[in-house]
């Protein structure tokens, strides 16, 4: 009898051990992205607040709509958690990536990720790959090189190539006073993208960029900005927080949609060469 009880106890323990991950999965792996309401949004991906919301594991698929297409899958999934506070929502995206790619250069792409939300709530969402002409999408985009410069890396070629040899910059001539308007004007002449105010270019105040699109190839800087982010490199991948405006026309408990994209620099992924999700339901609700 005692032997039988012992056997039953052991079997129960084994069953419990087997069931436990499944139970945990049920708790944390939501079928939708739930932005749990909190008092204040965390800026860091390591903040304890992220444990208060469920995790959605989103399968990534190839961008296969327009050339250049990605033909070989790279990043398999992105783990997403979301928190909401006031009119803001914060997403934490985590994905496995063997290498840290944050130094741009010829043939050097950088690691990046993005969050995409329909511009306006609609029961029929826009096309999942960058929206469509009738239905715009808002995109918030984070890049590892922008993060590196915000984390302290300088904005010179020697910060990217420590052994670079530079003969002379005309705008560094002794005849031009450092910081003078004449000097700045001359320097701008040799950096046309910066001179034209290309939001993609130049030293940054945040590691993210607000964009809008109405289909593939239409990505444009958004008129309204204000998003922020923070990416931290872990042992095996990235953990990135993207904080942006919650869609004003979506109330708590109502569902909109969200999509994600991930680029691995080491795999030469950039622009259209990316792994992405389809639309995933997104809802904001009070924490339990």
């Amino acid at each position, binding site marked *: 009898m005692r032997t039988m009880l012992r056997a039953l106890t052991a079997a129960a323990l084994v069953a419990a051990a087997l069931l436990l991950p499944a139970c945990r999965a049920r708790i944390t792996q939501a079928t939708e992205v739930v932005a749990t309401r909190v008092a204040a949004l965390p800026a860091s991906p390591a903040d304890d607040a992220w444990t208060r919301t469920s995790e959605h594991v989103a399968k990534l698929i190839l961008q*296969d709509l*327009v*050339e*250049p*297409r*990605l*033909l070989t899958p790279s990043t398999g999934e992105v783990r997403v958690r979301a928190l909401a506070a006031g009119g803001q929502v914060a997403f934490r995206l985590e994905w496995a990536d063997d290498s840290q790619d944050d*130094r*741009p*250069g*010829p*043939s*050097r*792409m950088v690691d990046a990720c993005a969050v995409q939300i329909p511009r306006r709530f609609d029961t029929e969402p826009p096309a999942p790959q960058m929206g469509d002409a009738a239905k715009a999408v808002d995109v918030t985009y984070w890049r590892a090189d922008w993060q590196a410069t915000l984390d302290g890396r300088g*904005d*010179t*070629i020697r910060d*990217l*190539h420590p052994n*670079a040899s*530079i003969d*002379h*910059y*005309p*705008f560094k001539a002794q005849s031009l006073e450092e910081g003078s308007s004449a000097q700045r004007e001359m*320097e701008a*002449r*040799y*950096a*046309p*993208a*910066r*001179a*034209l*105010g*290309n939001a*993609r*270019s*130049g030293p940054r105040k945040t590691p993210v960029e607000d964009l809008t699109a109405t289909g*593939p*190839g*239409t*990505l444009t800087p958004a008129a309204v900005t204000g998003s922020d982010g923070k990416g931290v490199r872990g042992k095996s991948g990235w953990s990135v927080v993207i904080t942006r405006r919650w869609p004003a026309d979506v109330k708590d408990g109502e569902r909109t949609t969200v999509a994600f994209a991930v680029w691995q620099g080491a795999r*030469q992924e*950039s*622009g*259209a060469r990316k792994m992405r999700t389809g639309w995933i339901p997104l809802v904001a609700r009070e924490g339990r």
Partner: protein
Amino acid sequence: MARVYNWQLGREMSYWYPENRPAAQFAAVFDTNKCIACQTCTLACKTTWTSGKGQEYMLWNNVESKPYGSYPLAYDVRLLEMLESQRWDGHTYAGRTIFEAAPAGERVLGWRPEDQDYSYPNVGEDDCAGQIDKGAAIAVPHMSWFFYLARICNHCTYPACLSSCPRGSIYKRPEDGIVLVDQQRCRGYQECVRGCPYKKVFYNPMTGTSEKCIGCFPKIEQGLQPQCFVNCIGKIRTAGFLSRPDQAKPENPLDYLVHIRKIALPLFPQFGLEPNVYYIPPVHAPASFNAQLFGPGAAAAVAAYRNAAHDADLAGLLCLFGSTEGVVRRWRRQGETIVALDGKNGELVRVPMREPVFIRPAVDAQHQLVRTNCP
């Protein structure tokens, strides 16, 4: 893909966009036989346009020694290998262009150079095609050969950079055919760097955008030739506008050299871009090498060039190279003088075909002194 006509291939080909030729096409002729690789053109461009942060490695203009020179490293042979057979059936290209050979998921057949590929801009400089045995170098004809190839953006009729950009950040100006990267729109995906077979688009890591030769369009708009043309010591270059072959005008210097005399040829026409910088091939390089670089017309071009001493019009027009900063729209020969005209038929310059010769006597009777000529 659309079907477009590429006269350099003698046939239609596939291209990402429909045929849309500009009102006028900026073009140039470079005489490889005159280039001395002084790199003054390279520096003229460098100091004018690419002295900024992130542009340190960029050479919108470069001069490489052929057969071994290349910038970026092996830009030509890598693509030639990828393209496989490049057979010509007479003057019709029977192989595939980089648009027709594009793999699944790609817009063009291409590759992207890495940092170190830009690190040796003068690799192969003055290297001969073969070994020179002791004493052989002073023999004529030389046992071995090399020549200088000056390169800028070709402002192609069918640019691969333009067709590679997934967001339409590159455009071809309708008024002069100059190809530009919109620095406000570019997001630095480097698809153009990958697509351009001549590797004349460069990524700027400081601005995060790609940049390229702009054909000195602010000068072109004023009727002036670009910096690399007017600073050329060897006077190897002339810039102008090229008509379609069926609309060629003998009084247009570019039309005369390219379409009528067929003495200047495109670089790697088999790639399919209809490039608009035309080269007078080197007279001393093997015909097979010239044919691979400049297409099936190379041997005839060399023969015509060799005969220029007996060809007053051709020799005269070649005298105009480097003789004026203005863009020559029309030219004519008046006996031993060549006259260049601008777009409003104003005279730009008048050049004698033969420089006058003055013989100075050793004894100067007026000043009562003897001058010595030092060899």
